[in-house]
């Protein structure tokens, strides 16, 4: 089964455990500044929204890369940057419509979510299940279930 990260912003509290887990997994340091997942705070609306790469099937970043540094991890479907190949040209950061691939000036390479090889640290760290790692074909399953229940309840009135 292909799995993907599923984000439910309504559950996010803004604790940044995901950002710390991501940076720790990839650098060994707790450093939200180097996280590949970011939580945005829309303060005056009282909303916190985690956001990261959704691993496009036809990935703009992958197609734009002039040195073929972005490859598909066949096990997870993740688009993964090969640091040894990346030249830090940042063309992918222009190509990505979502802004989820970014340059890291410490390494001189770009970085993006790689699904941690199939065990995403952000999802494991999230205390409220705002970030889960679920069947990629059924990310809407929970929401469908809720509406199914609501619709049916309404129909029975």
């Amino acid at each position, binding site marked *: 089964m292909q799995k993907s990260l599923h984000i439910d912003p309504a559950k996010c*509290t803004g604790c940044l*455990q995901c950002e710390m887990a991501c940076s720790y997994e990839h650098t060994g*340091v707790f*450093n939200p*500044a180097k996280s590949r997942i970011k939580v945005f705070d829309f303060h005056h*609306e009282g909303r916190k929204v985690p956001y990261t790469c959704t691993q496009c099937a036809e990935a703009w970043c992958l197609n734009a890369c002039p040195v073929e540094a972005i490859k598909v991890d066949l096990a997870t479907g993740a688009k993964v940057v090969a640091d040894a190949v990346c030249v830090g040209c940042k063309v992918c950061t222009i190509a990505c419509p979502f802004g989820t691939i970014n340059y890291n000036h410490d390494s001189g390479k770009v970085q993006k979510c790689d699904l941690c090889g199939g065990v995403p640290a952000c999802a494991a760290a999230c205390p409220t299940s705002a970030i889960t790692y679920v069947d990629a074909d059924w990310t809407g399953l929970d929401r469908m279930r809720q509406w199914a229940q609501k619709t049916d309840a309404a129909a029975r009135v």
Partner: protein
Amino acid sequence: MAWTRKILRVNLTQGSCASEPLNMEWAMQYLGQRGLGTKYLMSEIDPKVDPLSPGNKIIYTTGPLTGTMASTGGRYSVVTKGPLTGAIACSNSGGYFGAELKSAGWDMIIVEGSAAKPVYLHIENDKAQLLAADDLWGKTVWATEATLKQRHQDPLTRVSSIGRAGENQVLFAGIVNDLHRAAGRSGVGAVMGSKNLKAIAVRGTLGVGNIADPKVFMSAVVASKKVLAANPVTGQGLPKYGTQVLMNVINEMGASPTRNHRDVQFEGARKISGEAMHEKRATDGKTHLVANQACFGCTIACGRISQIDQTHFSVSTKPEYWGASGGLEYEAAWALGNANGVDDLEALQYANLICNEDGMDPISFGATIGAVMELYDLGILSKEDIGLEAPFGSAEALCKLTEMTARGEGFGKIIGLGSKRLCAKYGKPELSMTVKGQEFPAYDGRALQGMGLAYATSNRGACHLRGYMVSTEVFGIPIKTDPKATEGKPELLKAFQDATAVVDSSGLCVFTTFAWTMNDIQPQIQAACEGDWSLENLLATGERIWNLERDFNLAAGITSKDDTLPPRLLNEPCKTGPQAGMVAELGKMLPDYYRLRGWTLEGVPTAETRSRLGL
């Protein structure tokens, strides 16, 4: 290691910023944050110094777990000599600022001297500089944060600043970071104002590493997070209702000081409770509460984000307050509400917003209004004195007086002195509900005997966060004790005070201790830090910190005669509720407490105690 081992020393008189190594010998004795900050302050200032003079210093200090994945590991403390009390002041805050400071590579900032003109400190990793703040002076905390983020073209910059209350040296001015998280108590904001230091803006991209044993640390962190999630208080009560879960509980216990401690139960409590914040308003059909919010790294998320009723008289013509923002926590709701007899939830939120916006401690402010309203009730203060009618229960008076105090207008200047000085000024010192000059928080020291002792002996004046005896007397954590009983309370309080000093020195939040014991905390500290942090050593560290703070106060001229409670608590019994008839029986507990602490009958640590603790 967990410490960055670096201190930033800022001299405002000279305009200099310099890096120096952290004294690791002291770190091994005092851990970090509250303990280590106090050790530095004690070593560098004369405890008799005027708190608002350039001779005082102000220290912003993180703990070894600040900025790590340990749940709630985002705290920092501000340590200085407090202007409200003349005692050691140590105010702790969450939000994101503390972790950002650590991530920039600093354990601590020591600020000394005083700037000739307003300045702010800008830190970007190892680069630190003082910049002119003439244009920020007179601005609120909120405007200051927005301006600095824009000026440095970095929305991820974190800011800790004072508002107009701190500039005006309101004696209970706080320091606010991330819009509504505050190092709130004892007037630390007034010290910042006295130094012409408007703000600290920090951006850290280095991260926090140097964990002594990363594998063991991460497994301890994961196990401890599970304990918080499984506990009914930290896993359900606090996320859903915030600390406001306490409003109805404490009121039903007959332990909710009301109308300047005349009563111990407030008939309007339910209307301003955590439960009420979930109810739909008649005016707009919306709930007051919008969401809960976590501080950095916190898996409890007790913070309240609320949206005020736009039709309420306080904001109907002020759309700038209509957005969601930091909502009422229990202590603020109590101080602005019960202490004044005001049961208008929206008015309390307005006053709370102003406290956040201009940097005032809502506890001391609200409790001072309680004293003003009692003086008004007694005919000692008139409408002419105050500038408005101020009877108990008046939401209009509360809102207006909040604005006046925050902005230093009219009678607000006198309120800004705090209740001790205000009551003395009008010839009624006994009506000030304070210990060592600091106003009580939201628990009655007559109804809960242990809390009475905690207030009397707290090193920073009346405070619930130095030994939260409510845990045992109300919730039965770690054991259930009778609130009326005095026996056994000194032992428990000493244990609470020492353990709390450890938590406050680690980078963690004391709210974790609703669920965590030292057995959950110790493995996280031991795995993160080099050195021996056995349970035994940690508790000795806590006791050492408590005694060091006591030493500071003794040297500042505060003695055992100040370990007392206002006459109202000692002589006027609780009128209603389960604890009716009770007064605070401090005399039955204090000698025992001194003895258990290893202090003389005059409350001074003996030579033997000093030597045992390495003081």
